[in-house]
């Protein structure tokens, strides 16, 4: 359990440093059980910081999301560090970003949060609907304790835990300058049963499944924008020339978009699950990403976001790579 006072104390220390520009953390949301990103610029701002199982966002996204606006002539860009709080899964995004040379390690001050799991907010809202008043979620042992409106309820951890946490292999951040809590030992493994179930379907069933999901897509690009690995200056899938897919929203273009998006994450997706979480149309996007993730692990023994010194999966090969599919 992260000691909130310690967290704020450390954040205060960090933001007070001359070489730190901002601290990215979490603060309570505007209603119900939600939490939201916090951008601490001043020491006084730290009082709103929290960490609870409602802190679902992967803040690594913000490291690459911030626009590099033109620097006025004669000035130098602000090169002060950004401090960021990351859970185990989120930290893998930083590792992968660094593998891809998105920035230097010195650019960051990483406040690692060993994590026992976060909630799936949809599950929480289904269990406790219509809660407007700010509520709190805490993890105590194998139970989530939900308090709101003066009431307190306990729910088995498994019932509200986000799916990604049920197969989390890295609860403790893989990279950090400072851990905000004791290390958490691995408590789950990934058996890919979700992907295997889908793989076993007939080709027709598979397409029927995806056709239903993908035809819903509105191409709001939340899945892409929230992804810490999608940080191109100008997404190639949006370009008019060359046009990889049209802007039209129909099942054909939507499928092309989702195939291309998932392929661009092959060997890069670090399983934070943000894409699926943010999808307003409930498209099981992680089932796409996880197919690549599984194959990348099975075929090439590669786990993205675990080694900043590794070579990018698709920029390397082994002479012995499988080729039984080749005529």
């Amino acid at each position, binding site marked *: 359990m992260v000691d909130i006072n310690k967290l704020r104390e450390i954040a205060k220390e960090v933001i007070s440093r001359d070489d730190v520009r901002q601290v990215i953390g979490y603060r309570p949301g505007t209603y119900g059980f939600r939490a*939201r990103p916090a951008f601490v610029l001043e020491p006084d701002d730290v009082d709103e910081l929290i960490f609870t199982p409602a802190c679902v966002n992967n803040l690594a996204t913000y490291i690459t999301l911030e626009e590099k606006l033109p620097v006025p002539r004669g000035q130098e860009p602000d090169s002060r560090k950004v401090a960021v709080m990351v859970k185990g899964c989120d930290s893998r995004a930083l590792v992968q970003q660094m593998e891809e040379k998105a920035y230097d390690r010195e650019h960051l001050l990483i406040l690692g949060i060993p994590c026992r799991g976060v909630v799936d907010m949809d599950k929480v809202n289904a269990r406790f609907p219509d809660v407007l008043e700010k509520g709190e979620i805490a993890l105590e042992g194998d139970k989530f304790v939900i308090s709101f409106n003066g009431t307190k309820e306990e729910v088995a951890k498994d019932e509200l835990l986000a799916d990604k946490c049920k197969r989390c292999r890295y609860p403790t951040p893989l990279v950090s300058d400072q851990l905000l809590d004791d290390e958490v030992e691995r408590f789950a493994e990934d058996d890919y049963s979700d992907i295997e179930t889908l793989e076993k379907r007939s080709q027709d069933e598979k397409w029927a499944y995806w056709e239903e999901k993908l035809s819903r897509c509105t191409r709001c690009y939340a899945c892409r924008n929230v992804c810490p690995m999608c940080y191109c200056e100008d997404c190639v899938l949006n370009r008019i020339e060359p046009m990889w897919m049209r802007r039209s929203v129909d099942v054909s273009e939507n499928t092309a978009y989702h195939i291309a998006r998932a392929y661009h994450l092959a060997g890069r997706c670090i399983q934070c699950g943000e894409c699926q979480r943010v999808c307003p149309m409930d498209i099981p996007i992680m089932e796409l990403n996880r197919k690549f993730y599984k194959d990348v692990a099975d075929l090439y023994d590669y786990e993205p976001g675990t080694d900043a010194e590794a070579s990018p999966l698709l920029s390397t090969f082994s002479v012995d790579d499988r080729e039984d599919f080749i005529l």
Partner: protein
Amino acid sequence: MAVKKLSKDKVGEALKELSKFRLVAPARSDDVVIFKEISDPAEAYLDYGNSTVPPKKMVFPQTETLFRFMVGDPELKEKNVEEEGTTVIFGIRPCDARAMSIVDKLFAWDYDDPYYQKRRALTTLVGMACTEPPSVNCFCTSVGGSPFSKEGLDILLTDMGDYYAVQALTEKGENLQKTLSSQLEDGGDEKKVEEMARAAEGKIKRSIKTDGIPEKIPTLWDSDVWKKVSASCLGCGTCTFLCPTCHCFDIQDEVEELGEGRRARMWDSCMFSEYTLHASGHNPRPSRKERTRNRISHKYSYYPNKFDDIACVGCGRCINLCPVNIDILDILEQVVEA
């Protein structure tokens, strides 16, 4: 006109009757509710809060062909909206219907948009009053609407338990009511409906005082507030695509390599970086800060200043579905405080 009754066991029959038109109703796709054209009454899902995507897409499709052409051939083949025929949108929430009447002003402003207007004219809106607020983040009552608002609707249905109270509100509504004459019965309790309407208003939990906001926003152009409220914004199109009043579009020519093509318009979002990107590479709204400022300004200042209506009906979708809990009421409060 007297309030009629539609017994719940006759709803299927009524929908069957309406399917001689292009019948649109809320339907489920997995756990998501969307409005879509239905052919089987069983597809309609009437026990719903509100749809994820507002039914604006039935009159303002996300992707819409304007005309087709052949490269080098001056002949254009224009889309004939009338071919789509009469559309009945069954079960639209009052806020979404109200949104249509707000957006109507834009499409009939400096340019009469024939595609939109023809489609609108051919559309009959059968609303479903919100006896319970569909979400905790509903705030229709703060922006000129209400759970039983009749604005923009042709018919209002109210769930009375074992039947729907049916109120025809316009000539279109009356005509539709006639179509359903064999399913409708007399004896709807108008008084009870009004009671329920008042009760429903009381159930709306969130609110904002909008007084002065349209005037205040322009004074905040350079304020720090925008940077603050947009810091966590991802720049996705969730809030705008799912907004019943957002109406921005982009026009694209889709040309096959053989020269056959179409000009189509499709939803665009002011939250996208390409939205204001110039061909030169210059972008007058270079960051999420300017884009957020624009979204809020458009809804709460530009639009009311021009058309008297706030371009927000308080449906709460943007609050519910924002990936990072950017809350328009929270922003407005900060605007007020700034």
